[in-house]
């Protein structure tokens, strides 16, 4: 069990990186506390697998150090790091029984037989594998196999962290939920550091306490699921997380008013010194944009209503810019003229993609 420190870590696969785009992983500096449940979230090619491989020891970073507690493990091989990993495709040793699979990491480390037996029983109980302990591992379903490979990690008492590399890719949709809650449960019981790599926001947001969102080789935001939702630090986070993602509109900001296509939108915070010559965008989540009858807000043209079960979403146009808004329950609509009301506290201003904090009400004190 350990705290994981990423100390000015960066990696390039090419031999002589110069430009920032030569780096598959741009510099990252971070501390992951012991016992945390982390998710690395991002689209494919964003560098999350590179980061995972650096942590597991398959890749030695070009620059920087990685520490488990205070031990520098940057150049240590995988087997010397006390980590466990669950891969995208279930890895089980086909010729062995489930019991032998679970005992394998302990036997390799010359743990005495009685201790192995006890520990395997214990972990099998934890993972609900008691019933299949003596079956051949090769004939089990994919989710069972994934549980076994997780078990092979848990069986070692000294494990510093468990890494999950998109572990639910080949699992049946209806079993995904089940496996995910089992992971959550284990995390609560065992006080282990878990790092979960995925491109699926639902998996990340339901599993992790802290989600690290990566884009284009860099970490764009680290935060709790709530923070990612309420205050996306980057437009990428805004539209990548949430379904549908954040509405982003080019805007001009003057003091506490934003102008979008000539329409004034009041803001809760002031932005007195926005940098000149940058691309300014206004971001607001569909959840905080409500459709109102004509004349009671920003005038928009209604394009379509999507009923997605729990709620209805309106596709509208504000001066030609597409936008998604929430339709209140029971609200009736007539014609294609409507209006929008926005919650000023939930409106964020971005300069070149990055969140501009703004000044709280009063506008004076920093």
């Amino acid at each position, binding site marked *: 069990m350990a705290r994981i420190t990423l100390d000015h870590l960066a990696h390039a696969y090419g031999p002589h990186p110069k430009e920032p785009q030569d780096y598959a992983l741009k510099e990252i500096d971070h501390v992951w506390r012991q016992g945390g449940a982390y998710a690395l979230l991002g689209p494919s090619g964003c560098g999350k697998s590179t980061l995972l491989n650096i942590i*597991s020891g398959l890749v030695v970073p070009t620059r920087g150090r990685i520490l488990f507690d205070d031990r520098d493990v940057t150049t240590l091989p995988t087997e010397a790091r006390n980590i466990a990993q669950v891969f995208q495709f279930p*890895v089980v040793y086909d010729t062995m029984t489930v019991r032998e699979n679970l005992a394998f990491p302990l036997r390799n480390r010359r743990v005495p037989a009685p201790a192995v037996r006890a520990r395997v029983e214990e972990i099998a109980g934890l993972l609900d594998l008691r019933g299949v302990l003596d079956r051949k591992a090769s004939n089990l379903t994919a989710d069972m*196999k994934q549980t076994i490979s997780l078990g092979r990690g848990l069986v070692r008492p000294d494990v510093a962290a468990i890494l999950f590399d998109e572990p639910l890719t080949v*699992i*049946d949709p209806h079993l995904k939920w089940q496996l995910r809650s089992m992971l959550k449960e284990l995390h609560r019981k065992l006080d282990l550091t878990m790092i979960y790599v995925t491109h699926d926001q639902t998996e990340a947001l339901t599993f992790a306490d802290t989600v690290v969102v990566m884009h284009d080789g860099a970490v764009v935001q680290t935060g709790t699921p709530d923070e990612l939702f309420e205050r996306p630090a980057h437009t990428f986070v805004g539209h990548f997380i949430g379904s549908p993602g954040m509405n982003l509109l080019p805007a001009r900001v003057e003091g506490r008013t934003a102008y979008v296509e000539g329409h004034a939108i009041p803001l809760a915070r002031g932005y007195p010194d926005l940098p000149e010559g940058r691309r300014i965008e206004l971001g607001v989540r569909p959840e905080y944009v409500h459709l109102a009858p004509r004349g009671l807000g920003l005038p928009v043209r209604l394009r379509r209503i999507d009923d997605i079960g729990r709620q209805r979403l309106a596709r509208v146009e504000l001066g030609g810019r597409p936008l998604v808004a929430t339709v209140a329950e029971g609200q009736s609509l007539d014609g294609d003229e409507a209006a929008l009301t926005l919650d000023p506290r939930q409106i964020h201003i971005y300069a070149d993609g990055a969140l501009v904090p703004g000044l709280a009400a009063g506008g004076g004190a920093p």
Partner: protein
Amino acid sequence: MTKTVNQKAWLLVLPVFLVVAFSAVLPLMTVVNYSMQDTFGNNQFFWNGIGWFQELLDPASQFGERFFDALWRNLLFSAVILAIEVPLGIAVALAMPREGRAVAFCLVVMALPLLIPWNVVGTIWQVFARGDIGLLGYLINRLGIDYNYAGSALAAWSTIVVMDVWHWTSLVALLCYAGLKSIPDAYYQAARIDGAGALAVFRTIQLPKMRRVLLIAVLLRFMDSFMIYTEPFVLTGGGPGNATTFLSIDLVKLALGQFDLGRAAAMSLVYNLIILATCWVFYTVMTNVDAGSRAAPAQSDPADAAGSSLPPAATVALDRRAA
């Protein structure tokens, strides 16, 4: 993948069936015909029933003794070369470089002996192992060991075994290499994380994944060594004495050399039956292994099916047509 029942598929198989039947069944009928008859020459044949077979399978008769000698000799030879080539082939496959130009180079050099006509293989070793003009024979003699493959049975045997190892180990190695290549990296990474040493990796990952190709390798090597003819014939002509007269050499001597058609035909049939039986055993084991390894992924299939994503090959095909 479940196959659909379609009897019209026979139409697609028919050409192959006819050609192979013409090449296999027709000649075999001639053989069966000969095996039941005797001749005094001049194309006059008379019925001999199962006489030749009785003689062949009776170790006390001269003909039977000769047949069983050749049979045991051949089985011993097959056992020896399997015992050498299979472990050596696995070792070579494990020693293959992982990537880069070295892989192509190794593959090409390894495949080279496989594409040399068999009598040239015999010739190469005939020359290479000669004491006077061959490098190998010369060096062995210089070491003070009396070595002459035309004179001593032991030398003849060793030369043929080494020649066969030279000729065919690459086949086993290439098969195993193909099996090893199909193991995903995640298995090796998982094994490292589980603290498995090289031996444990070999036993728990590499060997099980090589099982199918190893079966093919053993089958091919057993069959081909069991009917070896050209290479030892060129090298030693079956001698010295009968020391290296394997079944095929014996059969050709009998059929084309002495034109003893009845005996040769009876021997052919028994020879063929042994091969057929061995082949059947292997085939059964192989289809069982196949069924075993195909059943496992079948159970995890619903996940893929639910994902409803076309496999890569399918997308390739669609791209092709779009282009």
